[in-house]
C-alpha cells in the first residue's frame, strides 16, 4: 500500500527504442508537481533537450493523471497529455491536451500515476498494461485501422474492462492535427507524436484500488458537499429557463433540463425534469450539450448523457439519428461535446434547412464518425474557420492545382451537404493532396507553406486566430482583459475555463460582483459581459487565480471545464461556491495536508516551469513581445464602437499594456520582458531551473 492515499505511487516509463519498461516512485520524484501536467512539464524540462523536434525519438509524451483520478471526487476523469506540440508555430513548444473518459481511472487502478513514453519502436507496437504486467505487443496488424476497430481488437485481447487510448490513421500518417482517443469520444492532441513513435495504442486494465487517506466518513461528507455545490456543465449555476425552485434564470446557461424536455431517443423516453439543485440524484439530467449547441431539435435524438469517470455532469451527449444510417451508411449512434460534436457541422457556412437544422445535426454525426475514428483534431474550431476562409476568399483555388480542385464536390460544400465530409476528412488523415496535407499541418504551418502572412489571419475577427498557429479560447468575449491575459500564456489555445465558468454562470452581475469581492478582493474584478471597464489590479488577481486553478486541476486530474467551484446554485449560501474544495479533497485523499494557498503555490510552480520550458526552447527571454502577443482584432470592433462602451468586446491597446504589467507584477515576473525573475524561481524551489536559464542568458 502506498504511503500516501490518492497517488497510485508509481510512474511507468516505457522506452520504445530498447523495449525497456521500468517504474519510478511518484512521491519521491514528482510529489512537488502533484501529477498530470506537473509530471509532464518536469519530464520535458529534465529530459527533453531544447531544439528537439516533436516527431524525433528524443521527444517524449507523458500521460499524466493525478491523485484524485479514479476516486469519487466529482469530475476527475482527466489524463493530461504533455509533449512538444506539433502544431505550435513557428517552432514546436511544450503544451498539453486533456483527455477525459475512463483511461485515467483505469491507469490508477493498475497502479500508475503517469506513463512516460520515450524513444521510437522499430515497427508498430501497442502497449498493454494489466496491473504489474506491462508489455509491448506487435501492432502491425492494427496499423491502418481506425480508432474504433483498434479499440475493439485490443478489448478482445484484454477484456471488457480495459480502457484503450488509440490513434487513428491521422496519427499514424504524422498529421500534426491529430488526436489520441479513449472511450469513444474523449480526445487529446498528440496523435502524431504517438504515431512518430510507432505506438498505435495503450490498453490499460487495473484491478487495484486508489486509497483514501482520510476517514471514510469524512471523505463521504466532503464528496456530498462538493456534489451539493455543482451546477450544470461549465459550472453554470442557474437554469436556462424559469424553474419553480430558481430565483434566476439565464438563456445562455447550459443547465437546460426542464419539465417536458425529454431524452426522446431513449426507450422509453426519459424526462429531464426541473432538477432542483438539492436533489443530487438528478445532476446528470441538468446538461445536454447537444441541445445547447444544436438547438431544441436535438432532444429528439438524445439517448442520454455520457462522460468521464466519476463525473455526474455528463457533457458528452449520445445521439441517435437514424437518417444518417440510410443516407450515409454510418452508425446512427454518435456522441461528443462542444468542438467534437460540431466538428462536421462547423465546416459549412449554410445548410439547406437552416443553421440548427436536421441537416446540421447530420453533419455533426458524419463529422464525429470520421474525426473520432481517423483521429483528427479541430484546433478548437480553427480548422473549420480556416477552411471556410480559404474557400470563400478564393485563396484555396490559387494554392492547389486544377485537377485536385476539381476532385472535390464544391457544389456539395456550398449547399451544406454533409456528404462533402466523406471527401475531405479521410484525405486529411491520409495527407492526400495539397489541400488535405496543408489543413492537417495546423494553421501556422499551413500559412507558411502557402506563403500567407500570419498578420492576415490575425486581422480577421471571424477567424478568431490568436497566435502561434492557434485560436482564442475564452478570451476578451469572456471577461475582457482577464480572458486576453490568459490567452497570451500558452503555446496552443488556452483551454482555461476558470474565468469563463464564473463569468457565464448565469447569476446577475450584482451577485457575481458580491462573490468576486470575496474571491479576489473587490467587486471590480468582474465586469458585465459587453460592458467592460478599464484594467485594475483585481482583474490581474483573477487572471492569475484562473491560470493557477487550471494548472492545479490539470495536475490533480480534475476537470477545468467544470471547476473551480467559485459559485453554486444554492440560494441559501448566497450562491457561494467553495474556493478551497480542491484542498479539502486533496488533503483527505492523499493525507498530505495542504491549504488552498499551499496548493495554489504548487500550481504556480507548475505554471512557472511551463514558462521556463517555453523560454528555454524559444531561446529568448523577450516573452512579452515574442510570446505573449495579442492579435489586432481584439482591439477592433466591426461597428467601430470605442473600447469600454456598451456592447463591445473591443479592448484598448494602452489598457492592455497596463493589464500585462499588472499581471507580470502579480506573478513576480519582469515587466519589461515578461520573464520570471531569479527570486520568483527561487520562491517556488525552482532555483536549479533558474540557474540553467541564467547560463543561457535567459533571466531578465
Amino acid at each position, binding site marked *: 500500500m502506498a504511503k500516501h492515499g490518492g497517488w497510485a505511487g508509481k510512474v511507468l516509463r516505457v522506452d520504445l527504442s530498447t523495449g525497456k519498461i521500468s517504474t519510478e516512485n511518484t512521491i519521491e520524484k514528482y510529489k512537488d508537481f502533484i501529477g498530470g501536467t506537473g509530471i509532464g512539464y518536469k519530464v520535458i524540462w529534465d529530459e527533453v533537450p531544447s531544439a528537439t523536434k516533436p516527431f524525433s525519438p528524443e521527444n517524449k509524451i507523458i500521460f499524466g493523471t493525478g491523485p484524485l483520478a479514479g476516486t469519487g471526487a466529482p469530475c476527475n476523469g482527466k489524463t493530461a497529455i504533455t509533449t512538444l506540440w506539433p502544431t505550435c508555430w513557428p517552432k514546436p513548444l511544450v503544451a498539453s491536451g486533456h483527455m477525459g473518459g475512463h483511461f485515467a481511472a483505469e491507469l490508477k487502478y493498475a497502479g500508475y500515476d503517469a506513463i512516460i513514453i520515450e524513444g521510437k519502436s522499430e515497427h508498430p507496437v501497442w502497449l498493454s498494461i494489466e496491473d504489474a504486467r506491462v508489455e509491448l505487443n506487435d501492432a502491425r496488424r492494427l496499423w491502418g485501422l481506425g480508432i474504433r476497430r483498434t479499440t475493439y481488437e485490443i478489448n478482445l485481447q484484454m477484456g471488457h474492462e480495459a480502457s484503450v487510448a488509440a490513434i487513428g490513421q491521422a496519427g499514424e500518417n504524422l498529421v500534426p492535427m491529430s488526436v489520441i482517443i479513449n472511450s469513444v469520444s474523449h480526445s487529446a492532441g498528440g496523435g502524431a507524436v504517438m504515431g512518430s513513435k510507432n505506438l498505435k495504442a495503450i490498453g490499460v486494465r487495473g484491478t487495484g484500488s486508489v486509497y483514501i487517506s482520510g476517514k471514510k466518513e469524512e*471523505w463521504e461528507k466532503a464528496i456530498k458537499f462538493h456534489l451539493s455545490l455543482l451546477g450544470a456543465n461549465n459550472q453554470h449555476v442557474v437554469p436556462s429557463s424559469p424553474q419553480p425552485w430558481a430565483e434566476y434564470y439565464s438563456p445562455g446557461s447550459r443547465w437546460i433540463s426542464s419539465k417536458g424536455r425529454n431524452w426522446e431517443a431513449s426507450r*422509453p423516453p426519459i424526462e429531464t425534469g426541473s432538477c432542483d439543485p438539492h436533489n443530487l440524484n438528478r445532476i446528470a439530467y441538468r446538461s445536454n450539450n447537444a441541445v445547447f449547441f444544436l438547438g431544441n431539435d436535438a432532444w429528439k435524438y438524445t439517448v442520454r448523457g455520457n462522460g468521464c469517470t466519476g463525473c455526474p455532469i455528463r457533457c458528452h451527449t449520445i445521439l441517435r439519428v437514424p437518417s444518417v444510417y440510410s443516407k450515409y451508411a454510418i452508425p446512427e449512434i454518435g*456522441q461528443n461535446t462542444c468542438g467534437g460534436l460540431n466538428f462536421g457541422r462547423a465546416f459549412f457556412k449554410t445548410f439547406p434547412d437552416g443553421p440548427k437544422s436536421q441537416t446540421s445535426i447530420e453533419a455533426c454525426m458524419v463529422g464525429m464518425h470520421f474525426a473520432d475514428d481517423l483521429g483528427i483534431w479541430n484546433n478548437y474550431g480553427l480548422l473549420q474557420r480556416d477552411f471556410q476562409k480559404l474557400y470563400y476568399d478564393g485563396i484555396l483555388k490559387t494554392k492547389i492545382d486544377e485537377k485536385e480542385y476539381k476532385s472535390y464536390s464544391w457544389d456539395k460544400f456550398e449547399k451544406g451537404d454533409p456528404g462533402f465530409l466523406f471527401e475531405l476528412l479521410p484525405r486529411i488523415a491520409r495527407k492526400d493532396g495539397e489541400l488535405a496535407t496543408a489543413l492537417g499541418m495546423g494553421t501556422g504551418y499551413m500559412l507558411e507553406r502557402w506563403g500567407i502572412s500570419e498578420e492576415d489571419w490575425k486581422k480577421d475577427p471571424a477567424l478568431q486566430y490568436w497566435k502561434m498557429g492557434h485560436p482564442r479560447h475564452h478570451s476578451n468575449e469572456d471577461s475582457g482583459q482577464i480572458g486576453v491575459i490568459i490567452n497570451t500564456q500558452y503555446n496552443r489555445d488556452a483551454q482555461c475555463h476558470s474565468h469563463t465558468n464564473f463569468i457565464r454562470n448565469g447569476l446577475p452581475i450584482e451577485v457575481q460582483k458580491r462573490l468576486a469581492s470575496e474571491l479576489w478582493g473587490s467587486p471590480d474584478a468582474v465586469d458585465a459581459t459587453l460592458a467592460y471597464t478599464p484594467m485594475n489590479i483585481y482583474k490581474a488577481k483573477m487572471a492569475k487565480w484562473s491560470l493557477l486553478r487550471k494548472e492545479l486541476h490539470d495536475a490533480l486530474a480534475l476537470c477545468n471545464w467544470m471547476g473551480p467551484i467559485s459559485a453554486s446554485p444554492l440560494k441559501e449560501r448566497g450562491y457561494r461556491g467553495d474556493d478551497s474544495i480542491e484542498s479539502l479533497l486533496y488533503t483527505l485523499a492523499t493525507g498530505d495536508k495542504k491549504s488552498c494557498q499551499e496548493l495554489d503555490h504548487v500550481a504556480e510552480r507548475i505554471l512557472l516551469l511551463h514558462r521556463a520550458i517555453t523560454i528555454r526552447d524559444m531561446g529568448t527571454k523577450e516573452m512579452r513581445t515574442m510570446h505573449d502577443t495579442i492579435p489586432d482584432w481584439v482591439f477592433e470592433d466591426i461597428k467601430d464602437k470605442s473600447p469600454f462602451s456598451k456592447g463591445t468586446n473591443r479592448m484598448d491597446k494602452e489598457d492592455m499594456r497596463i493589464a500585462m504589467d499588472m499581471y507580470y507584477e502579480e506573478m513576480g515576473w519582469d515587466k519589461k520582458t515578461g520573464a520570471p525573475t531569479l527570486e520568483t524561481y527561487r520562491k517556488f524551489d525552482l532555483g536549479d531551473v533558474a540557474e540553467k536559464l541564467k547560463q543561457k542568458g535567459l533571466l531578465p
Partner: protein
Amino acid sequence: MIMNLNFSRRQFLKVSGLAIAGISALSSLGVTYGMAEVIIITEQAEGLVIGDPTKCVGCRRCELACTEFNDGKASSTISRIKINRNLQLGYLGLYTGKCDEGKWGIGLIIQDICKQCPHPVPCADACPNDAIVIKPPINARVVDSDKCTGCKMCQRSCPWDMISFDSDTNKATKCFLCDGKPKCVEACPAEALKYVRWRDLSRSVPTRISPTSVISQEKIQACMGCHK
C-alpha cells in the same frame, strides 16, 4: 442442487444468521439420503437494488461510493455493483461479436447488481466455511470476514459473477445492501438505481370483476376440505 421454485419456504426450516441450526430442511421432510445434515438457507433479504439501464449514464459513481464509503478505497474490481464491465462494449458484445450495448453500441449500460437470491443461494451454498451468512435486520447475505479464507469458491459459484474479491484483505466481498441504505443508490446522479423492499403483492392485485356466479353447496363442501 435443483429446487422447485414453487417449493414453499414454510417447508424449510428458517435459518437466521445468528442461529444457524444444524438441522437440514430436507430432513424435516423425511429426506436425508443418509448424509450429514446440511444447512439450507431460505431467508429473503429485506429488499434489493434494482437498476434502470435506460437511465444509467455510465459515470460509475455507484461503484466509487460502494468502495470508498465502505472500504475507504476506490476500486471498480471490488465494487459490489458492476458497471465498468458492461460500460464499453455491453454485456455480451465482445465475445458474441455483437457490440450492441455500452458506449460503443447503442449506449445502453446494464447495471449488474447482486440479486440477493432467497433460495438457493449459490455463493453461500458453495462456501466450504459457511462464511456467507445472513445479517439481520436486513437479512442480506454478507461475507463473514473472520470465516472467509479467500478460497474464491463463492466467486466461481455465482452465475451472475457478482462476488468480488479484495486482494488486499484476501477476502471475498458481496453486496450487503449497506444495512438498508445502499450507498450506490444514494450516489447515482441519474436516479437509475432504486432500493426496493420486497412486499407481498398477492393480495393487492385487484380483481377484474365482482364474481356473481353461484357455487353449489356440494362443491363448497369439497373446497372446505382444505380451506377451513
